[in-house]
């Protein structure tokens, strides 16, 4: 419904020829600019899901947890194989001649400097997760490995990765580090890279709107503008909003537990709602300041603070142990990556299904959000540079991060089997690890601030992404729409937390993770689609 200027302009030679005009299905109630029907269907069904889940909490939780477990346990081979395909696909693209293609055409220049770009990639991709799991996951795998393999009724009953490392501290430490890095390095980032690269390529090079459906154009043709596309976009909005709202809900509890531990603050309902309100309010200010003045600035500040904490712990912690954790952890990762990523014939089923398969579903359910956001800021990078910076550099950073935080924590457990960090609940492990080190009050405070700011950046970038999808790929829609989604996310989190508590959050988070299954199929199709698209462009550029 636009009255475009009627002048013919020369398009890029490889622009996809479609009669679809960006924004043609948009409607403009109250001066807004929203896609019909994606906006209405997604917002109404989100409200309906929240209400139904709260009305039938126990059965909803039971059903979605069953669904998530059913998918991750029965389709572990599928998730693991797909993860490997994504990594291999990206590496092949990076080294092949297709890597030369530049996002936005041969003459495009990068929109952001390396630092700004990288800060945003990391803050959106996994900032918050690293804070909570950087300490806890290495300890879990270390402990289960040290405990050794246990058989019960012909199946492994322990949670250790691969063959475990019964009683061997060094081997358990390396295996624990390798397993953790495996879940946070090449594979998750390759998942993000596939989505981000497809979206960026089909938008910047081929002229399609920046929304999930566009990357299916080579496979579905004009049908992507109809119900096929509506479904893909709506499920993406669904997964993103529930993923964000439930992790904001859980995260509030975790951050409050940390503040209670540090300052003795209350963890009651009022405190929960207040914290969600504060996070949402700051996110709204960030939204109103726009991409550069808001989320980019906060991401840069936060990555600088995270680097400070990293270097600080490296220096004041057990420096020798940390360096050996980084080096031997990294080497162990390189050595074990093939056995860890074997989709078939695994004996360590608890680990490969309960950890790896769950993680892959989780990363994949986040990928529409993170992928859209990465695509938004990656114009002007070549495919090769893009993959290197989105996969290889984060892998190095993850090895460093896990080495410093996980390495320190494992050292504490090795030195003293009753170390506080060992049995502390997930949300307190970071603080218990920092406690025995010098300047614990300062580092813990920095940790809390990092957690809160990562929540703010994901709330902001989440509303940016959902707004773009529900505006049919338009990035110039009125800011009021982003304000709506940002507030909506906070309200959903608060309502779930207050009315339903952990049961409702668990139910909807399990539902969000379950969307990882259909999206795995979507991502595999995206690889095919992206390859076909890149080949066409390469031919037209005379490659």
């Amino acid at each position, binding site marked *: 419904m*636009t*009255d*475009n*200027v009627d*002048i013919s*302009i*020369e*398009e*890029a030679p490889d*622009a996809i020829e479609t009669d679809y*005009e*960006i*924004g*043609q299905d948009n409607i403009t109630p*109250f*001066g*807004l600019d929203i896609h019909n029907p994606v906006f209405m269907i997604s917002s109404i069904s989100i409200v309906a899901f929240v209400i139904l889940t709260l009305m039938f909490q126990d059965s909803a939780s039971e059903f979605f947890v069953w669904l998530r477990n059913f998918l991750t346990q029965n389709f572990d081979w599928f998730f693991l194989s797909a993860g490997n395909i994504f990594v291999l696909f990206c590496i092949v693209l990076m080294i092949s001649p297709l890597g030369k293609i530049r996002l*936005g*055409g041969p003459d495009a220049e990068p*929109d952001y400097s390396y630092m700004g770009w990288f800060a945003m990639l990391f803050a959106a991709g996994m900032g918050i997760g690293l804070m909570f799991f950087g300490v806890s996951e290495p300890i879990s795998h270390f402990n289960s490995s040290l405990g050794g393999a246990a058989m019960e009724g012909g199946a492994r009953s322990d949670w250790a990765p691969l063959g475990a490392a019964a009683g061997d501290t060094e081997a358990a430490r390396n295996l624990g580090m390798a397993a953790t890095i495996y879940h946070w390095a090449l594979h998750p980032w390759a998942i993000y890279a596939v989505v981000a690269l497809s979206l960026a390529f089909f*938008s*910047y090079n081929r*002229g*399609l*709107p*920046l929304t999930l459906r566009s990357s299916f154009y080579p496979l579905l043709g004009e049908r992507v503008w109809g119900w096929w596309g509506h479904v893909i976009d709506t499920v993406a909005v669904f997964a993103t909003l529930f993923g964000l709202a439930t992790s904001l809900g859980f995260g509030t509890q975790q951050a409050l537990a940390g503040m209670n531990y540090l300052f003795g603050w209350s963890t009651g309902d009022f405190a929960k709602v207040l914290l969600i309100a504060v996070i949402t309010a700051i996110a709204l200010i960030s939204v*109103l*300041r*726009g*991409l*550069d*003045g808001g989320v980019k600035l906060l991401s840069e500040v936060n990555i600088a603070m995270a680097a400070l904490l990293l270097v600080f712990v490296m220096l004041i912690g057990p420096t020798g142990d940390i360096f050996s954790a980084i080096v031997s952890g990294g080497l162990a990762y390189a050595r074990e990556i093939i056995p860890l990523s074997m989709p078939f014939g695994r004996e360590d089923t608890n680990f490969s299904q309960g950890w790896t398969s769950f993680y892959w579903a989780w990363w994949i359910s986040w990928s529409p959000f993170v992928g859209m956001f990465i695509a*938004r800021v990656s*114009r002007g990078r070549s495919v090769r540079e893009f993959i290197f910076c989105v996969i290889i550099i984060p892998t190095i950073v993850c090895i460093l991060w896990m080495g410093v935080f996980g390495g320190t924590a494992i050292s504490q457990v090795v030195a003293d089997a009753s170390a506080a960090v060992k049995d502390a609940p997930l949300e307190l492990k970071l603080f218990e690890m920092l406690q025995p080190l010098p300047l614990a009050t300062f580092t813990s405070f920095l940790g809390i601030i990092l957690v809160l700011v990562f929540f703010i950046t994901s709330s902001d970038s989440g509303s940016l992404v959902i707004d773009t999808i529900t505006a049919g*790929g*338009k*990035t*110039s*829609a*009125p*800011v*009021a729409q*982003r*304000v709506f989604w940002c507030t909506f996310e906070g309200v959903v989190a608060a309502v779930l937390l207050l009315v339903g508590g952990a049961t409702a959050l668990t139910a909807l988070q399990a539902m969000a993770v379950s969307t990882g299954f259909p999206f795995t199929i979507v991502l595999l199709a995206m690889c095919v689609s992206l390859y076909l698209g890149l080949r066409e462009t390469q031919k037209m550029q005379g490659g």
Partner: protein
Amino acid sequence: MYKNIMVPVDLAHESRLEKALATAADLGRHYGAEIHLVGVTGVQPGAVAHTPEEYKRALEEFANRLSREKGVGFHAHAEVSHDPAVELDKIIERKSEEIGVDLVIMASHVPGFVDHFVRSNAGYLVEHSSISVFVVRG
């Protein structure tokens, strides 16, 4: 009295601009002033153009066509923004200073529901700039 008149334009809604452009052309002829069209685009494909380069060409052609039709000099100034929805006001303010305009003619709408929450672009300029602003209601 006026030498440089600026008209911020949204190429996706050309019909809403007609009155403002006609006003600008009349004043331009009357005072012998140049008219500067300022358009802001994001880097993502939009309703008007798929790339910033395409957008620039579209705005230039639009300015050329107006120059021919209205008999006054129209100049195109395309600005690329990472986040047009948010940065629009500031870019218009900055461009008005860069070009050294003495009058801004803006197409605006009758205030509606959303305007109670979000200020209009014209409102921002009136509050923040010392340049005269002529708001043309469509």
